[in-house]
């Protein structure tokens, strides 16, 4: 029973790792970036290539995945994303879906449509038991990374001036500029961070969710659920939302497998009805 709790948390953390980049771009920048999954996929493929072709160890390929996705993020931000900020959410949806389509077909063309795999180092394989709870090493590793990420992101966005300047820029870019906030630079940095996190998430997720060209479409719904339920105004929101959804999903499927697929959706709808602005929306009356 406790094992299943652990699994639930781990699953939640994987959701978080995939979603947290999105909660940076979509949540903090208010940009509906459905192409998030494409950046995740990019990170995944970079990790795969780094390990297969360059023979790099797994740990070394993770920062590489982050950097590659962040770099591509910066370039794309400069070239095509920037004019999108001022457009409507619907336009952003369409634009980023377009990018996803291109990424899916492009990856297919470059890398083939088959699943990609990585080989984890031995110390991350298998599981061990503490007090009767079976703990997968890799899952524990993911939980640890996520915890760190959540804490540092939360700190970065709420406790620093960077965070409040960013939120100001999102609230009203025109006035923020007029008051001397370097909106473009803030957005570029944040976007790179969001993309980089997506890339990292993609690399971490390969082992658990697989990687193929349809990845950005297949998991889009999950990213969105996490960010919406968590609310778009903080990092802690998506963190707890991911945890809650992960636990509910895993527990639900374990206890009543017949209801398996319903649980996550039903829970999402219910939570959104009770808290339309997300679990941890900031002080709305």
């Amino acid at each position: 029973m406790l094992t299943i709790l652990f699994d639930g948390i781990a699953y939640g953390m994987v959701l978080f790792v995939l979603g947290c980049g999105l909660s940076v771009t979509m949540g903090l920048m208010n940009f509906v970036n459905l192409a998030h999954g494409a950046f995740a996929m990019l990170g995944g493929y970079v990790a795969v290539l780094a390990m297969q072709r360059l023979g790099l160890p797994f740990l070394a390929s993770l920062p590489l995945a982050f950097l590659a996705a962040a770099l591509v993020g910066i370039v794309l931000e400069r070239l095509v994303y920037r004019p999108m900020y001022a457009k409507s959410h619907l336009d952003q949806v369409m634009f980023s879906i377009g990018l996803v389509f291109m990424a899916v077909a492009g990856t297919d063309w470059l890398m083939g449509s088959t699943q990609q795999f990585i080989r984890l180092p031995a110390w991350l394989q298998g599981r061990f038991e503490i007090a009767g709870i079976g703990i997968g090493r890799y899952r524990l590793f993911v939980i640890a990374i996520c915890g760190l990420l959540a804490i540092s992101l939360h700190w970065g966005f709420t406790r620093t001036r960077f965070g409040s300047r960013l939120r100001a820029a999102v609230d009203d870019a025109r006035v923020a500029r007029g008051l001397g906030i370097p909106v473009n630079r803030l957005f570029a940095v944040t976007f790179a961070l969001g993309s980089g996190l997506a890339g990292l998430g993609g690399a971490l997720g390969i082992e658990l969710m697989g990687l193929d060209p349809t990845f950005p479409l297949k998991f889009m719904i999950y990213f969105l659920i996490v960010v919406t339920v968590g609310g778009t105004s903080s990092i802690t929101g998506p963190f707890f939302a991911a945890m809650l959804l992960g636990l509910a999903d895993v527990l639900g499927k374990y206890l009543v497998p017949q209801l398996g697929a319903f649980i996550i959706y039903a829970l999402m709808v219910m939570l959104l009805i009770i808290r339309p602005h997300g679990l941890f929306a900031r002080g709305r009356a």
Partner: protein
Amino acid sequence: MSAAAFEARVREALRAGRRWYPAEFLFWLAAFAAFLLLPGQLLLLNEVAILALFALSLDLVLGYAGIVSLGHAAFLGMGAYAAGLLARHVTADPLAGLACGMAAAGLLGLATSPLVLRGSDLTRLMVTLGVALILYELANSFASVTGGADGLQGIMMAPVLGLFDFDLFGRTAYLYSLSVLFLLFLVARRVVGSPFGLSLRAIRDNPLRASASGVPNGRRLAAVYALAAAYAGAAGALLAQTTQFVSLDVLDFHRSADLMLVLIIGGAGYLYGGLVGAIAFKLLQDGIASLTPQYWMFWIGLFLVLFVLGGREVIHGAVRAVVGRVARFGRGAAR
């Protein structure tokens, strides 16, 4: 200016919204003429007409009431299954099936409308999406009724109005779908130009001011949501009847997502957006897919990106120019 003269001006201005433009006549003329001009493409055209009706439905809620929905497939699916099941178990009459599909989807819309009344765009997107996904899982679980993943087999439709049999070439199918689309379009056109339609725009623009002006926001939104759901149900029924098959796919996420693209391509909030978008989207998809079956997605994606990045202005500019010319021509002819 006298009070009476000013009243006349006000009346005139209020009428402007519902006047028919020459380009509109041309549009529908072309749609019906396609039946004769493109006999080899009727199946595709039928799909276009159904998608257009589906997009019209989304335009009603998105373009006129400002409710974004990523779960419109729920209503399409509801309509399709209702019509399909009716045909299998009760009567094979297409019009009865159409009515049944619309009613079933409309009721579902009414029942789920409380869910979309609150919250931000994003919340609405996800709640509607959630409803559609739940419906998908339900349809999958109740395989004894819906046929599950294998789809609903053995739908045999009677002739439309007892006269026109569905044929392999899609002749009846296209005319039938197009007629339904046209009639429902007329209704929608009337509705959006009515006081009711005006109040929807009011809610979309500023819900706070709308309720301070005496508009019962919740009820109006529920009403239009149910209406749109019925439209989507009609599209679903047409789909079920003209393909004589229903599968889980009608409830799938990509339906709703494609629909969104269709409407954004065409532009929301003027009724023709969905229709134009449906034509553009299908032709594009079909055209590119037959050129490069493996990588059409790439080109569609590129199109979408370029479209948003500036292509829209170019296209809409061109369309406006054409419409303007037609209008001038129409006025010239009228003189």
